[in-house]
């Protein structure tokens, strides 16, 4: 099942630890050389991104197992290994992570205080995230999971907005609460394995857990992931964290960290606890639908652009969970596609909101109006990102939304009906926001002369916007490598349905 | 030869222990607390000697144990009184209710 990597070298580990090595290197640069630190960090993230593309091009679409596997025995007495590999679900996540980190570093030029610590934390965070998306051993997964948590705490807490302390503590408490129960579940799962303790996911999947225990363990894992997603009603940390986080922090948070939750549901909950997954799927679907509607409704009422985008994330992440717990090929494919799309579109929206915030130092909707006239290029970019988020056909968002709703329809048509309602609400609040910011008369004299976008800002936003078109026209770039893995996951859950 | 049963000694020791514990928990004066502790230690000695006499008179273990307890009690009292003198010099009191700079 496990294909060894074809290179004979730990290429994947190199990818995971490249940012960490970069962070070590940067720690030796004098803190006064701010420019050097910025360019060095950007360089490291770009190299990491290019290196991650290599995995995309060398990925074997038809291989059922993990590819590029690196294995190292860590704790022999417990069978704990450092075990990483890539399959169809991890592949888009890895590339998304490296891309968005590079974008986030590019968006961090305005950060002036403690640049060195900031950049080091960004790189440590990237290693943690890449580890989460590639770990196959549960112990290693947990290590990376927690390692990704701490840098984000400091990014929000030190470089965040006025209520950053509150937001950062709330963020870490919610996530820690979820993950500490997951640790207990990991231990229980690994130690109860017949034939000696192991934490290797591929081993554990082969041995079904007894139904009673399965439900308990399912919930322990699901809670940790649901907090991260965040699934209604565990979402309350998200708006605080988003609003207070610096722009780059928001991009990473919305683009990648939230996906750790849905990725975890797909990677661990479904294959490890198939019976419990089928049993609780309706419950999760309903919570997801509540999240979709609630997130959209509350987003509509927001007066701060950033918190509007944050609540839209709650709504969009609901679609992903709905797709996953539809437990069919369309749903799962749609969920992964949606994860990528949401990373691109919400990442772009946060980036663009950051641009205007740096010019005006406010994000109040009422402070804007008529921006189209003063910053036309900015308005066009914002429109593209927004349309992608709404799910306009031709842009990437449409494919993911269509597939998840289709999956939900095949599982239960009523779910799909409510999800469609969420789609409409999504269009309403985004268009309303766009209208109030960009059209109408200029009500505030500050908006009459805004500095146009500079080259750096355009270059940072460009890859996200280009990818929106590319994936909209040719979604198979993501869906193609996914098929084999999704089929395999569904086979494990026992609800395999052919895609076409 | 043993007209008094072992239980009688144990009951006396237990009573003495309880008096000592009660005294040490209720006294306000540090020296008074120390006296309560000494009572408890004497209860220990009665226990040890009685057990030795009734159960294992052929070994010296119990007696030796009791002698050690006496020595330890003396050492402890010496340290305790030294500490009381030190605090009396700075605070002019050995009443534990007044020794309350630090709480919770």
């Amino acid at each position, binding site marked *: 099942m496990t294909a060894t990597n074809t290179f004979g070298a730990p290429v994947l580990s190199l990818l995971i630890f490249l940012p960490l090595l970069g962070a070590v290197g940067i720690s030796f640069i004098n803190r006064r050389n701010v420019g050097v630190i910025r360019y060095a960090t950007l360089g490291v993230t770009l190299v990491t991104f290019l290196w991650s593309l290599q995995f995309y091009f060398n990925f074997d679409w038809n291989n059922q197992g993990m590819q590029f596997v690196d294995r190292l025995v860590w704790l022999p007495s417990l069978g704990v290994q450092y075990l990483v590999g890539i399959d169809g679900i991890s592949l888009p996540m890895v590339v998304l992570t490296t891309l968005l980190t590079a974008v986030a570093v590019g968006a961090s030029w305005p950060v002036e205080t403690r640049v060195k610590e900031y950049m080091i934390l960004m790189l440590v965070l990237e290693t943690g995230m890449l580890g989460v998306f590639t770990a196959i051993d549960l112990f290693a997964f947990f290590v990376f999971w927690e390692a990704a948590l701490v840098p984000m705490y400091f990014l929000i807490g030190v470089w965040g907005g006025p209520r950053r302390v509150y937001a950062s503590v709330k963020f870490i408490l919610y996530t820690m609460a979820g993950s500490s129960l997951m640790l207990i579940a990991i231990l229980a799962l690994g130690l109860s394995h017949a034939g000696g303790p192991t934490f290797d996911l591929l081993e554990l999947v082969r041995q079904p857990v007894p139904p009673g225990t399965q439900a308990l363990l399912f919930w322990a894992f699901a809670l940790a992931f649901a907090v991260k997603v965040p699934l209604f009603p565990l979402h309350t940390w998200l708006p605080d964290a988003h609003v207070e986080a610096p722009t780059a922090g928001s991009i990473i948070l919305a683009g990648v960290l939230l996906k750790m939750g849905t990725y975890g549901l797909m990677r661990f909950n479904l294959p490890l606890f198939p019976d419990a997954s089928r049993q609780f799927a309706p419950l999760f679907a309903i919570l997801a639908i509540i999240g979709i509607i609630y997130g959209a409704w509350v987003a509509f009422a927001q007066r701060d652009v950033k918190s509007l985008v944050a609540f839209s994330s709650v709504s969009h992440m609901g679609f992903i969970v709905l797709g996953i717990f539809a437990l069919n090929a369309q749903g799962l494919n749609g969920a992964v596609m949606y994860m990528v799309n949401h990373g691109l579109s919400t990442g772009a929206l946060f980036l663009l909101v950051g641009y205007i915030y740096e010019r005006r130092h406010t994000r109040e909707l009422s402070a804007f109006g008529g921006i189209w006239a003063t910053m036309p290029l900015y308005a066009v970019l914002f429109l593209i990102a927004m349309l992608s988020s709404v799910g306009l056909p031709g842009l990437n968002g449409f494919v993911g939304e269509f597939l998840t709703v289709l999956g939900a329809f095949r599982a239960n048509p009523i779910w799909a009906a409510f999800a469609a309602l969420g789609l409409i609400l999504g269009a309403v609040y985004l268009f309303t926001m766009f209208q109030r910011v960009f059209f109408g008369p200029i009500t505030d004299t500050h908006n009459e002369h805004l500095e146009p976008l500079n080259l750096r800002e355009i270059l940072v936003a460009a890859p996200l916007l280009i990818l929106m078109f590319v994936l909209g026209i040719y979604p198979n770039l993501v869906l193609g490598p996914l098929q084999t893995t999704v089929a395999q996951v569904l086979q494990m859950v026992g609800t395999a349905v052919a895609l076409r | 030869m043993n007209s008094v049963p072992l239980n009688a000694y144990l009951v006396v020791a237990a009573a003495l222990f309880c008096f000592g514990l009660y005294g040490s928990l209720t006294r306000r004066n540090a020296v008074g607390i120390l006296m309560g502790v000494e009572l408890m230690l004497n209860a220990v000695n009665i226990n040890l000697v009685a057990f030795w006499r009734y159960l294992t008179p052929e070994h010296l273990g119990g007696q030796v144990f009791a002698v050690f307890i006496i020595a330890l009690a003396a050492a402890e009292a010496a340290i305790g009184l030294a500490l009381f003198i*030190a605090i009396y010099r700075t605070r002019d009191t050995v009443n534990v209710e007044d020794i309350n700079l630090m709480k919770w």
Partner: protein
Amino acid sequence: MVSGLDFQLFLPETILLVGGIAVLIADLFLRERADRETNLAWVSLAILVAALVASAAQYGVSESLFRSSADPVAPGAFVVDGFTTFFRIIAILTTIIVFLASVEYVRGRTAFRGEFFALMIFSTLAMTLMAGSTDLVMVIISLEFLSITSYILTGYLRGNVKSNEGAVKYFLYGSITTAITFYGASLLFGVAGSTNLYDIAARFADPTAIIGTPLMSLVLPAIIFLLAGFGFKIALVPFHQWSPDAYEGAPTPVTAFLSVGPKAAGFAMLLRVFAVALPEFTHEWAALMIGVAMVTMTLGNIVALSQTNVKRLLAYSSIAQAGYMLIGVAGVSVANIAGIAPGEGGAGLAIDGTAGVLLYILAYLFTNLGLFIGVIAVDYLAGSDTLPGYAGLLRRAPFLTVAMTIFFLSLVGIPPTAGFIGKFWVFGAAIQNQLFALAAVGAINGVISVVYYFRILKQMWYEAPADPTPLRLPGTMNAALWICLSLTLLIGLFPAPFIEFANQSIHMLGVFVRS
């Protein structure tokens, strides 16, 4: 009367005893010399290092001292086995690190520096004795020895009101709990008719001897009374009241020492006495531990939430940490301690509770001492031990701040740090013994602890300093900090050899298990 006295085995203790006395005498003669404190510090350090080497050299030895002449085969009053060696190393390492951190601090605070060093060495001696005691008399003496030296060290700043008060409170609580312990020991002696732990175990293992007699009703009180004494050293709820006051009042290096050394020694003694003398009652005392562990963790963490003095906060934090260690004691398998390898006939388990405790103590040693080096540094350089004193530490001492952050993460149990490995192991032991509720309570407590640990982090990272002058740590303190930091990360990243060390160290000489 006593034979089998092999001084080779007693070498670490001999070095500490002779060395401690030598330091005292040297202090007397060097009184006039200006450089005496530095010289004495280095001499004391050399004594400790020698004792450490002598202890490490006995790795793998399993022998007994002070055997009775009547029965030269049975183990005597003191044993040197894997377990003793482990705790000797822990005790001596603790003192060495505290020494390095306190050389500068002690200078100029009091007129009796030589005594300070000698007392620390004697405390170390008491802790090594506690680890190997296998006779109730020896247990009681070493326990009291450590108590007495700790009282004096706590009240070491004679003119300081807080130091006096801490010492008096420590002494009063201590003398009451030791009296209770002695009473428990006398009951155990009465029931089993011997002070030798192995004889006691043999009496309980023999079904014809005392099972069913009225004396048996005294066993459970004896266990609880003994636990009072060990729990006092470890600072378990409800024997913890002394610790916040003693921690806050004591000179900061002594606080660092108290938070690790006596705790570890208390665990050594608890495990040794219960596993050697009372294996027949494992169910009873393990059940007792579950309750005490839950209460200890929860109370320690909840009270810590409202503390503003960092030493006091860390006192409650270390109470909670002791609660986590106790999870491991609740998951003890006496079969593993007796040396029956895991898996053989289902006797042992893959994760052993005792190994969990040892691993946790090892992690805690470096983590907590590292943290206290920071506290000593701030106290010494900035003269503060309250939360606002830590404001903006990131700007004043960046390396110290990053190191302390890692120590806090380790205390919470976030990978890749030593604390995570320790927690993983004790939780694993609990789960293997089906103690899911205990593990869940431990996990929830971990989240509570985040709140108050991160309050200090918030001060260090987010707040602006009142006085932005950089703090420069003295060289010895820096060295101690580096030792703690590198080991905290090393255990976290490459735990295999340390786990092997802990697994090897759980074997106690001559533990009897009924098959």
